[in-house]
């Protein structure tokens, strides 16, 4: 049987800087001569006549693979690896520069949750509109209507304009419509990174159902757990090229390994050649030192809530006092969970400095949940980013007994000190109201329990 999806030599070229130098008005076109407007209109790039230098950039280069019917393929890669471009080509939003792809079956793509939702329309109206935009027939939508509404849990608000929806309801409704598409091939971009945890689980469950139904799914995500759970096969893209094609578990291994060889480990990270560096001025950042209690080097990983001290070594190109260092911590889903920056320091140094410097950042209690964090470091000179390294280093927060109860925090992004006690319940209700308004205590407690849940 022929593969349901055939991708051969697929390439897509963009022009870097095309956004900024894009010809926005006729005047600019006219400035480039009389013949230029036509080439601009008809898509030949204007660089040929040498007026504007556009850097060609291959978002995807010579990618070849087949997808068999029933495959659930995870597409993995860091930001800018070409994942989104691949999905856009598959869903025909943009056309390839070279190569071709053959699709044998109805393909539906879900690159964003709620595409085409109109805030002024009601939930009911948006279900129909969004369904039609995603390629469903009216009869099909009608058939699945009750299921969609039940899945989204918005029965009571069906006739309310979605602009009055909470963001959670909005996302639920949008995913519900998409989840009831019935294509032979389903293409999904990172749409599960939205909504609350229980809904994410529900979505993953629905997708699992879809893929077990023998349908072909292409799934892009940074959530390795989701890829591992759902996908039978994985491909790794890197700088627009296909680097790995194999089982999902192997592809994840390959990807993680390629990441960890790129970002530094150990307590002293030499910033030469690690991560993804963008030096607008010069490569000024030298190294990062990770220290913990008693200035001990951080080797194994940090216990939750322990002291973290980071020394950032860098050079200043000329004498100045307005320089700052930022440190960003991303969790394994690529979400920034914490940013430290020296502009937040109230007692700043005034002195003018030059040459080699060390800025030290001390975090008395590092309260992120256990896991691996990628550290981004950057240097600002006179308020502008001069040097930046994404994924410069890896740092692990260990599973440890933060609360002193023998229980390891497992959920959320951070831990916070909390106190619980049982309120006396014997008070008459009138008295109770009074004491509540006086102390505000029950309100605080309520909020805490929500945060925990």
């Amino acid at each position: 049987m022929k593969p349901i999806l055939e991708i051969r030599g697929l390439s897509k070229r963009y022009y870097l800087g095309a956004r900024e130098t894009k010809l926005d008005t006729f005047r600019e076109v006219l400035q480039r001569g009389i013949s230029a407007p036509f080439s601009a209109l008809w898509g030949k790039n204007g660089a040929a006549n040498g007026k504007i230098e556009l850097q060609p950039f291959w978002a995807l280069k010579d990618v070849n693979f087949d997808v068999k019917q029933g495959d659930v393929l995870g597409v993995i890669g860091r930001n800018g690896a070409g994942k989104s471009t691949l999905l856009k080509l598959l869903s025909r939003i943009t056309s390839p520069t070279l190569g071709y792809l053959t699709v044998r079956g109805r393909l539906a793509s879900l690159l964003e949750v709620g595409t085409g939702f109109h805030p002024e329309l009601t939930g009911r109206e948006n279900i129909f509109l969004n369904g039609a935009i995603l390629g469903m027939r009216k009869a099909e939508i009608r058939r699945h209507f009750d299921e969609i509404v039940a899945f989204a849990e918005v029965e009571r608000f069906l006739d309310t304009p979605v602009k009055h929806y909470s963001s959670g309801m909005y996302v639920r409704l949008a995913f519900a419509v998409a989840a009831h598409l019935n294509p032979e091939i389903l293409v999904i971009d990172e749409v599960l990174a939205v909504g609350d945890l229980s809904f994410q689980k529900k979505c993953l469950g629905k997708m699992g159902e879809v893929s077990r139904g023998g349908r072909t799914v292409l799934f892009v995500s940074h959530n390795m757990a989701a890829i591992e759970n759902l996908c039978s096969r994985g491909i790794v893209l890197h700088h627009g090229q296909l680097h790995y094609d194999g089982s999902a578990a192997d592809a994840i291994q390959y990807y993680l390994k390629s990441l960890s060889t790129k970002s530094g480990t150990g307590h002293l990270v030499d910033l030469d050649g690690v991560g993804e560096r963008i030096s607008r001025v010069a490569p000024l950042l030298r190294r990062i030192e990770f220290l913990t209690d008693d200035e001990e080097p951080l080797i194994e990983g940090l216990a939750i809530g322990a002291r973290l001290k980071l020394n950032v070594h860098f050079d200043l190109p000329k004498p100045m006092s307005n320089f700052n260092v930022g440190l960003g911590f991303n969790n394994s889903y690529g979400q920034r969970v914490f940013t430290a920056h020296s502009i937040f320091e109230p007692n700043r140094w005034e002195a003018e400095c030059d040459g080699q410097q060390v800025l030290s950042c001390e975090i008395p209690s590092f309260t992120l949940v256990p896991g691996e964090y990628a550290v981004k470091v950057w240097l600002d000179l006179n308020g502008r980013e001069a040097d930046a390294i994404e994924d410069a280093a890896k740092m692990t927060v260990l599973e440890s007994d933060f609360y002193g109860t023998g229980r390891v925090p497992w959920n959320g992004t951070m831990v916070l000190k909390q106190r619980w006690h049982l309120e006396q319940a014997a008070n008459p209700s009138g008295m109770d109201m009074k004491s509540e308004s006086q102390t505000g205590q029950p309100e605080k407690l309520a909020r805490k329990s929500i945060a925990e849940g």
Partner: protein
Amino acid sequence: MSTTFEQTIRPRSGWQPIDFQEMYLYWELLAFLVWRDIKIRYRQTLLGGAWALLQPFVAMLIFSFIFNRLTHVQSDGPPYKLFAYAGLVPWTFFSAAITQSSNSLIANQQLISKVYFPRIFIPLGAVLALLLDLVLSLALFAVMMIYYRWPLTLAVFWLPVFLLGAILAASGAGLILSALNVSFRDVKYAVPFMVQMGLFVTPVIYPERYVPQRWQALMGLNPMAGVVIGFRHALLGSAASWQTVCVSLTVCVLIFVTGLVIFRRMESRFADII
């Protein structure tokens, strides 16, 4: 759903044939886009659908005061108010249609960069959604006919032809302008100006015979000239110079075909540059 459905996506550049089969497959979406535009047009307005009537009606009152009372433009038979309104009905449709459709792609850029469907439906939908306003203003026209006791003639059967002309001209211009607007936001500024000037070069507020003989042929090149003359002929039984009307309607068809072809050529790059 058949597994025999097969499609190969290749690099696209240059002229493309128009894919009528695909448009047929997606026609329900066109209906939904029209429905959406109608639904949201007058949401959260005080007067709602009355706006559709108010615009040509107030314009008619003002024009009849300025041109009929002050400068004594004559209407050749029917009361001037009826005469002006019969011209303003198609003109209001046309001007609103090209204004809306030329901005439609930009207004829907989120859709264009996130999901595939025949892009042509966006400007077409914007034009078709305005047909409801046109029908409403025709209903008001019927009331005015009764008020002025002006008889309807058999010529009214020509109305669909001229209506089609107006739709083709508006769609064609809308397709070209919306496609240009993706790369050149100049269109946003040019269109209101064009619409304003268009009112004066089209015989909306004056009868066609006011245009000197040697300019008549040139007037035929204005697609809306024929449409407006035709509307007046169909609704009021006014005389029409068939030569001008025929040339004009041909121009309507040509604009539409040109619009389709140009749009088709440019659409493959919309998602990349919008």
